[in-house]
């Protein structure tokens, strides 16, 4: 048994999605994501970026084609997948601590372990001071941290993120991006990320998938690799600027003339 057969983390083969009204949201998309990758889907509105996440999570089914997550159907793989939505989607009647514990609670993790994990995660995202606060008392950035902590609490292999920082100001967004990478280096999950921001995509990703709209399809795939570490300083580095330019150029092709 020396042969190791590598199962890709996510595999979409010939996936199409049509709405009942006939509109084609995605047209035969092929995409393979390996373990440990950070893949960003980038493209104009209506290119089906969010639909790809919904398909990988099994929240919606494809009209044709096949999707596998860790060698299973999306629904069966859910135990190891976490989803972060554009809004923080916190339960307003629960404290921060109870919100972070929600994912574990739903998966029936027992009390003591849940308490420990929740405390550790609050610590990890820098929210230990506001554990007993209610969501309405928090800023947008802090809410997103809670959402992130909740998603990581179940120790996922795969993290799906649908424009999680789109509603935040740029400073907060940059800081959360740095934090996201720090968490990833500690926890080693695979990520599929959706954004409108080229700079955000370049900063975070190991690979950027550029999509075009009408019908939604993959236009280009841009690998991203830097010689320096991905810290705040990277944003002012020359290679970063060049990459942003390259991706922007590709993205422009995605828009009809």
């Amino acid at each position, binding site marked *: 048994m020396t042969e190791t057969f590598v199962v890709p983390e996510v595999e979409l083969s010939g996936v199409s999605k049509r709405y009942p009204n006939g509109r084609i949201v995605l047209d035969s998309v092929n995409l393979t994501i390996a373990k440990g990758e950070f893949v960003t889907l980038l493209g104009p509105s209506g290119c089906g970026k969010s639909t790809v996440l919904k398909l990988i*999570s099994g*929240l919606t089914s494809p009209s044709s084609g096949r999707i596998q997550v860790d060698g299973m159907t999306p629904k069966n793989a*859910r*135990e190891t*997948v*976490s*989803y972060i*939505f*554009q*809004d923080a*989607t916190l*339960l*307003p*009647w*629960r404290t921060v601590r109870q919100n972070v514990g*929600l*994912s574990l*609670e*739903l*998966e029936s993790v027992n009390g003591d372990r849940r308490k420990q994990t929740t405390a550790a995660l609050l610590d990890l995202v820098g929210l230990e001071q506001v554990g007993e606060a*209610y*969501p*309405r008392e928090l800023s947008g950035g802090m809410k997103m941290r809670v959402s992130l902590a909740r998603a990581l609490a*179940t120790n996922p292999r795969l993290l799906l993120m649908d424009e999680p920082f789109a509603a935040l100001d740029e400073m907060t967004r940059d800081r959360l991006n740095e934090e996201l990478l720090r968490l990833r280096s500690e926890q080693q999950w695979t990520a599929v990320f959706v954004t409108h921001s080229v700079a955000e995509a370049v900063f975070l990703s190991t690979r950027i998938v550029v999509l075009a709209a009408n019908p939604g399809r993959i236009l280009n795939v841009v690998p991203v690799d830097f010689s320096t570490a991905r810290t705040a300083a990277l944003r002012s580095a020359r290679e970063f600027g060049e990459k942003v330019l390259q991706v922007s150029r590709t993205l422009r092709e995605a828009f009809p003339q």
Partner: protein
Amino acid sequence: MNANRTLQQQLITAANALGVFAALLLLWQLVLWIFRVPPFMLPSPWAVARAVVARFPALTTSLSITAEEAGGGLLASIVVGVIIALLFAQSRWVRRMLYPYTILLQTVPIVAIAPLILMWVGAGTASVALIAFIISLAPVIANTTQGLISVDENLVNLFLMHNASPRQLLFKLRLPHAVPSLFVGIRIASGISVIGAITGELYAGSSQIGQGGLGYSILYASSQLQTDYLFALVLAATVLGFAFFFVVMFLEWHFLHRWHESARAQETE
């Protein structure tokens, strides 16, 4: 500093309310003096106050009878209303099929069916509570249903992503989400349950002569031309309505002030 200021504001509000009250009493007395209204048409504020004191035991008995009927009807409407709302929240199909009947519940004139209920259930507390229940039911159903089904789609998706059971979806998401709406329903219902009970008593007031709730006593007092006592009864009915309203407001504040905007708005007002 801040606490002092809010206390000061509350005192000013209270003083204003008392001022309006005093002005109304004065106006009332002036009308009596200027137009020389006979006391059986409009008694003086002083005569009403005397009637309250003189017949206090009878007044509180009537008040407590009506309070029990309205309270019983209201509690029943909350329990039954929430159960029906849970049924409605199950599917759009069920809602479409049954919703017209809740509108029926709201539009049927209670005055018109009160004699029927009297005939079926018999005179007394039970039929009055039943009338209060029927009239309070619709707002509880409508508001609770709205709260149960208006949950953000992504919150449902979040629960699904963590393999939540239907039970968890209901008890950890839909029901807590519906609590603010439920309270809106209860607030409306609490006011009309008192009205329903008094209306009911006008028809089905009492199984004993001379002893009944506020509505029954109002009829009795008016037939005897005891207008001062009639005013005292109306006053008691108002007090009862206020009491219901404040109990509901307090419960709403108690359960919601930590997380919900509506309860918070009441705090800062």
